């Protein structure tokens, strides 16, 4: 067992369940995510992975079960407050601000983080440190040339990158990436991978992915979700060798 696994989990769920009428999307999921770990959540389509993320971030209310962050029960905490506690997500389908520029979007994220969101009595320009940080952030992730371009006009791979950058602007302690590589063409995915690899060691990262390259490269632990429940958990090697997982998901082509 690694030291990461022995430390107190930063994010835990206990028997988290979500039912929509007669359909159970998430079924009694119990997860312990260690601080600083890189954990992947894989599973076939419709297994409930995005629903789980929606529950963790507060977009959906659980039917049953609990979620705790640093030992605090956040099951009923509103979505925006979770972000302020450091729990931030990205979306599988780009959920950006089409009519705003990346600079404006980043400034928004920074403003809200700095509790400037309801400041109406001074211009944003006069809060120059916001734009400065936004510029720096975009520069760090090679998006500086798009700073003043409408988001809708950026190439898809760059938008996907912006998706992560916006999340990082909120200074997360725990980052939930929902299929970060989804739809990104081969030649643009390298940059994305580098960004994910370059995330700070102290940041806890939970990511949903179908791209097995990404999963086996970055994950220290993998949880396999099938039909809303955790089938098995373990290191990449254990998962790759597990016959149940093979049957349910991987097929016979992988590792």
């Amino acid at each position, binding site marked *: 067992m690694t030291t990461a696994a022995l430390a107190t989990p930063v994010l835990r769920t206990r028997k988290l369940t979500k039912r929509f009428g007669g359909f159970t999307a998430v079924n009694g999921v119990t997860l312990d995510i260690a601080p600083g770990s890189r954990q992947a959540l894989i599973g076939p389509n419709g297994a409930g992975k995005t629903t789980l993320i929606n529950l963790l*971030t507060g*977009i959906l209310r659980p039917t049953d079960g609990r979620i705790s962050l640093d030992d605090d029960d956040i099951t009923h905490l*509103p*979505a*925006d*407050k979770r*972000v*302020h506690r450091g729990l*931030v*997500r990205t*979306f599988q389908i780009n*959920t*950006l*601000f*089409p*009519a*705003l520029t990346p*600079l*404006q*979007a980043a*400034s*928004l*994220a920074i*403003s*809200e*983080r700095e509790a*400037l*969101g*309801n*400041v*109406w*009595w*001074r*211009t*944003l*320009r006069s*809060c120059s440190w*916001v*734009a400065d940080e*936004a510029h720096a952030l975009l520069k760090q992730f090679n998006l500086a040339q798009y700073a*003043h371009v409408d988001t809708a006009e950026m190439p898809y791979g760059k938008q996907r990158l912006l998706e992560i950058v*916006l*999340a990082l*602007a*909120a200074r997360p302690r725990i980052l939930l990436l929902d299929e970060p590589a989804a739809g990104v063409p081969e030649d643009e995915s390298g940059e994305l991978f580098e960004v994910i690899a370059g995330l700070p060691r102290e940041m806890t990262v939970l990511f949903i992915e179908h791209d097995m390259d990404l999963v086996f490269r970055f994950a220290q632990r993998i949880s396999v979700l099938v039909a809303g429940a955790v089938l098995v958990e373990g290191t990449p090697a254990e998962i790759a060798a597990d016959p149940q997982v093979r049957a349910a998901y991987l097929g016979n082509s992988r590792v």
Partner: protein
Amino acid sequence: MTKLNLNPRQIVALEVVFWLALASTYFLLPEKLVLITQIMITGLFAIALDIALGYAGILTVGHAAFFGIGAYLAGLLAKYGWGEPFSGLVLALGVCAVLGYMLSYLIVRGSDLTRLMITIGVCVLFFELANRLTPITGGADGLQGVDMWPVLGQFRFDLWGKTAFIYTFCIVLLMFLAVRLMLKSPFGLVLRGIHDNRRRMLAIGSPVAARLRLAYCFSAAIAGVAGALLAQTTQFVGLEMLSFNRSAEILIILILGGTGRLYGGLIGALLYMTVHDFFSDFDPKFWQFWLGIFLILVVMIGRGGVLGVLSRVFKVREQRL
């Protein structure tokens, strides 16, 4: 079609020209002062509605509630002994802000339909209330005896409307500048963000409902000031200031000028009231009929009002952050 580029400095220049031209009507159109004063007040009301509708995305056909309440507050204050003009404005602003904030809790939950219903319902409710409380409000006859003291102790409200014009111009310009500041503030960007992608706003930690409530509160406060201005400059408050018809009318005016654009309300008011004044000799039913036709055409054909059309011709390069 390639758009013509306008940089931010040119825009500011245009703005200055606009306000100077407006001010100059004092000298150029002295017989139309009353009309222009009313245009400015209506423009302010439309701007207030725009904050709720164009920026916060709250569909309301009941905004006359705040306009009317502001009017009655200012009118009653003056009638019952305190005719100092600015006090009336402050009272209207404060009360409508509080009322708007309280109502905003109802408004930001529920679907578009529920929201619409509540806004219409509240407006009609206040209308009925004013109608019933005849001893206080004057009921269907309206509130009379609104005795205004001179502005700053010096300038009497004269019969030609000169004081009223200057007073209104200053207040409207002041409120306009406040709104302009607000739209350039972090809060203003937040409103745009909510408009653009609400889910994303939640995901970056924005308490969306709270922000929308604040916007509605502003919208109500400014509408109240507009109503107070009307009461003070006409020295009369009528029931129709609280009516559904007034709410529908201001909505039409805003649509005409263009929502979500700072000058939409003012342009709309200018156009609408000038045309209305022109046709005012005709039968009022005639006006209503053609207004209806116009609305139908606007929806089926035109998009975005006057400023919307202009925006397809001119591209404004935004002020760099």
